C-alpha cells in the first residue's frame, strides 16, 4: 500500500508554519499553529482536523512542498473523522466506482482526458482541438479520484488511482492533456506524494490551449474584456500552472482583474462546504467571492473547473457577470462560439 511521503523534519525547521497560519478558515497565530500542527504530525487529536474545510490551499501555502493537506486527510481517516456527513461520502464513493462503462475514442499517442466530467463533451469543439478531438478517454475508469481528499478517504484513492493509471497506460497514451485541472494535480502532486508512478506525461490543458492559440495567432481578435478568474481547489495542487492564465489572457486581450480573492488568496467555489459544514459557510464564501467580482467590475467570470461552473455559473450570471469556461473563452478569441452554457433552469411552477 502506498504511503504518504511526509517529511516531519521540514516542519521542525519551519518557523512560519504557513500551512496553518495562512489558512482562510481556521484563525491561528503562529504559536498555536505550531502546536496544533505538531499534534497532527504526531497523530494526536487536534481541532484542526475537524475545522478543516478541505479547501486544499495549504498544499500551496507550504513553501517546502511537504503536503500538509494530504497529511490532514490521512489523519482524518485514521481517526474516523467525517468531514462531510456519512451518506454524502457514501454517495461519492459509489457514484465514481469503476464499473466498466467508459468511453474511449480513437486513441493516439497524445490524448485528451475528460476525466468523469460530461461537460467536456460540450466544451471540446472547434479548431483548438483539431487533430486530437477524437483521441479521448472518459468515464469512472479514468476518473482521477482526488475528490476523496474532501471526504477523508485517501484509502479509496490509494486503491483506485493505480488502476486508473494502468487503464490509461493500457490505451498506449504517452501524453495526456488533462482537461480537468484536478487530474493534472493528481498526476503531478498527489500520485508522487504517495510514491505512485505515473507512466505517461501529464499536460495541463492551460498549456495545451496556450500552445494552440499561438498556432492560431493571426486569427485572434483581442477580446478587450475584464475578467474575474475563479480559482478552484485543485489549482492548489499545481500552482505552477497559474502563470498560464496570465499568458493566455495576455494573448487574447483579457484583463485578469486584480481582486482580493484571486491568486494565493483565491476562494474556491465553496460547494464542498455546503455538504461538509452546512449552507451558511458556503453561502457566505460564495457571496464574498461574487461581491468581490462585482466590486472590481468584472464582465466575465472565467472558470477553470466544471464543478466550479456547476456551483457558481448561475450565481454570477444573476449578478450580471457572464460565466465562461477557459476553453470557451479561448474559442471566443478565435471567433468561435461559447458552447458550455447554463441549462434553461426549469424554474417553472
Amino acid at each position, binding site marked *: 500500500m502506498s504511503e504518504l511521503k511526509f517529511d516531519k523534519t521540514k516542519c521542525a525547521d519551519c518557523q512560519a508554519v504557513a500551512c496553518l497560519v495562512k489558512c482562510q478558515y481556521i484563525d491561528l497565530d503562529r504559536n498555536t499553529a505550531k502546536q496544533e500542527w505538531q499534534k497532527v504530525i504526531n497523530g494526536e487529536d487536534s481541532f484542526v482536523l475537524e475545522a478543516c474545510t478541505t479547501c486544499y490551499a495549504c498544499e500551496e501555502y507550504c513553501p517546502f512542498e511537504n503536503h500538509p493537506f494530504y497529511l490532514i486527510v490521512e489523519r482524518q481517516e485514521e481517526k474516523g473523522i*467525517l468531514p*462531510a*456527513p*456519512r*451518506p*454524502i461520502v*457514501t*454517495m461519492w464513493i*459509489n*457514484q*465514481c*466506482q469503476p*464499473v466498466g462503462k467508459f468511453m474511449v475514442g480513437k486513441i493516439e499517442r497524445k490524448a485528451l482526458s475528460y476525466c468523469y466530467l460530461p461537460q467536456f463533451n460540450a466544451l471540446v469543439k472547434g479548431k483548438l482541438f483539431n487533430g486530437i478531438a477524437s483521441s479521448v478517454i472518459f468515464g469512472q475508469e479514468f476518473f482521477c479520484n482526488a475528490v476523496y481528499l474532501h471526504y477523508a478517504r485517501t484509502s479509496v484513492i490509494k486503491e483506485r488511482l493505480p488502476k486508473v493509471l494502468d487503464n490509461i497506460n493500457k490505451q498506449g497514451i504517452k501524453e495526456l492533456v488533462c482537461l480537468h485541472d484536478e487530474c493534472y494535480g493528481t498526476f503531478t502532486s498527489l500520485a508522487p506524494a504517495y510514491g505512485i508512478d505515473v507512466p505517461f506525461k501529464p499536460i495541463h490543458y492551460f498549456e495545451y490551449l496556450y500552445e494552440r492559440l499561438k498556432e492560431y495567432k493571426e486569427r485572434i481578435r483581442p477580446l478587450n474584456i475584464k475578467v474575474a478568474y475563479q480559482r478552484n481547489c485543485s489549482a492548489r495542487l499545481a500552482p505552477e500552472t497559474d502563470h498560464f492564465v496570465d499568458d493566455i489572457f495576455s494573448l487574447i486581450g483579457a484583463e485578469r482583474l486584480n481582486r482580493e480573492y484571486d491568486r494565493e488568496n483565491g476562494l474556491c467555489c465553496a*460547494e*464542498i462546504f*455546503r*455538504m461538509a459544514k*452546512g*449552507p451558511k459557510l458556503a453561502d457566505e464564501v460564495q457571496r464574498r467571492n461574487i461581491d468581490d467580482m462585482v466590486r472590481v467590475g468584472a464582465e466575465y467570470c472565467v472558470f477553470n473547473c466544471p464543478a466550479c461552473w*456547476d*456551483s457558481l*455559473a*448561475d450565481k454570477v450570471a444573476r449578478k450580471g457577470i457572464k460565466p465562461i469556461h477557459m476553453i470557451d473563452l479561448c474559442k471566443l478569441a478565435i471567433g468561435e462560439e461559447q458552447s458550455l452554457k*447554463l*441549462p*434553461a*433552469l*426549469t*424554474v*417553472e*411552477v
Partner: protein
Amino acid sequence: MTDIYEPLVKIVGKNYVSNQKEERYFYARDGGLMPAHEPDYVVLPRTTEEVQEIVKLANREKVAIVPKGAGLALTGLVIPQKGGIVLDMKRMDRILEVNEKARYVVVEGGTTQGALKSYLQKHHPDLRHSIPDSPPVATVVANVVIHGQGRLSHQYGFNSDMVSGLEVVLPTGELCRLGSCSVSSYWFSKGAPLPDLSGLFLGWFGATGIITKLGLKLYPCKKMRDVMVVLTDRAELVPDILLKLSHTEMMEDINVSAQPLPLRFKGTFWIMGYITGDSEDELEFKRQMVWGSLWDYFEKREVGLLSVSPDMKAPLMSMPSKDLTRFADVAKGGGFQYAGPITPIEKFPAFIKKLEEVAAKYQVFYASTTRLIGSGHCMMFSFSFSFNRANPDEMARAKKALDEASGFALEEGGVLWKADLDEQKMLMGKMDPNTLNLMKKIKQLLDPNGIMNPGNWEVK
C-alpha cells in the same frame, strides 16, 4: 351477444367506433403485467349526451363498458375483463371553466394533466393544480378516480381530496351532479355542506359510473420554486426526517427515492423537498427553516444536504418528473408496474427491507419513490419494477415480486393503491364484512346489470 356496432356508429359516427382487430388488440392491454383481454368495441365519445346514449345502449344489451383515460394506472384497470366496450375518453378534453376567485377548474372527463398544466400556465399563471408524476397524457379524472397523489399532496392530501364537484353518467344512463354544483352554478365543493356522494365514484375504478365533468381545486402558484435534496444512509431515520420536514410547513411536496442504479443512488435515500416563494428572500427563509429542522442530524453526520448542479436540478424541477418516466423504460421493452401501498410513514424501513428482499429473490430491477401525503398522515410507497415485455420470464418474476410486496404491505397495515384484480381480492379478503356488504349493495343499486368495469370491486 347482439352486435351493437351500428347503433354505436349512430351515436358517435363511424370514425369514432371500431370493432377492428388492431384497435381491439391495442385496447386489450396496458403497460403493466395483467393479462390482456380484448374488447369487442372501442368507442370515443365527444359529448356527455353521447356517453349517456352509449351507456343506455350497453345497459339495455347488458354489454360491459370500461372507461379509459390514458391507461397509465398500469394495473389492468382499463383491461375489459368481459369484453364489451372500452370507452376512450380522450376526445372529451375541454377545460370548461376556471374560477380564479374561488380557485377551481371544471374539466371534461378526458382532459389530460399536460393540457391542464399548460392551460393554467398560459391563462392563469397564479394558479396550479396538484399534478402527478405520470406522463402528461394521463387524465385528470382517472387520477382522482384512483385516488392519485401529486405535487401538492403533502400540503393538501390525495388529489381526490381536491375534487370540488362531479358530473356523472350513472350505469343506467341518468346524468347526475354531485356537490355544490348540484344546487348552484358554482363548483366549489364536492360535498360539504351536503351529504358527500362523491365517495360513490371516487376510488371505484369506473365500476359505478362515468365521470363526464370534474371540478378540481386550484392553489396559489408562486413565482419561484426550488428543490432541496437531503441524503441519509439509514432507512430507520427516514420517518423522523420526513416528520421534521413536514413540521416546518415549508414544503409543498416531499419524496424519497431509493434505487440501486445509477450508482450515485446506491446505499443512500434521497429525500427531495420542494419549496416555493414569490421572492428570493421567501425562498431563502424557507431553505433556512428546512435546513434548521435537520441540523442535529447533520451535526451527527447522519444527514447531508446535497449540492445540486444546474444540470441535475433541471430534471428534478420538471413536472411531471422526466426521471420517473425514464426509469419506467430502463429495462427497455416498455414494461413497468408498481405497487404503491398507502401506509403510515413509520413503515418506511420495513418496506425498504422488503423491496430489497423481493428484488433479490425474483431478480428484478427495482426503484422506489415515496410521496408524503398530507402532513405526514401517510405515504405512498412504491415497489416499482421495470421489465422487458418481450421477456415473459422477466414479466412473471416481476409479477411475483409485486404480489409478494403487496401481500407484505397489507400485513403491515398498509392499504393497496390502484389495486389490480388480484390485489382487490386481497383487500376484500381482509375487509370488514359489513363494509364489504355495503359496497356490494351500492354496486347493485347503481349498476343492477353489472355492466360497469366488471371484475373490479366485485363482491362475491
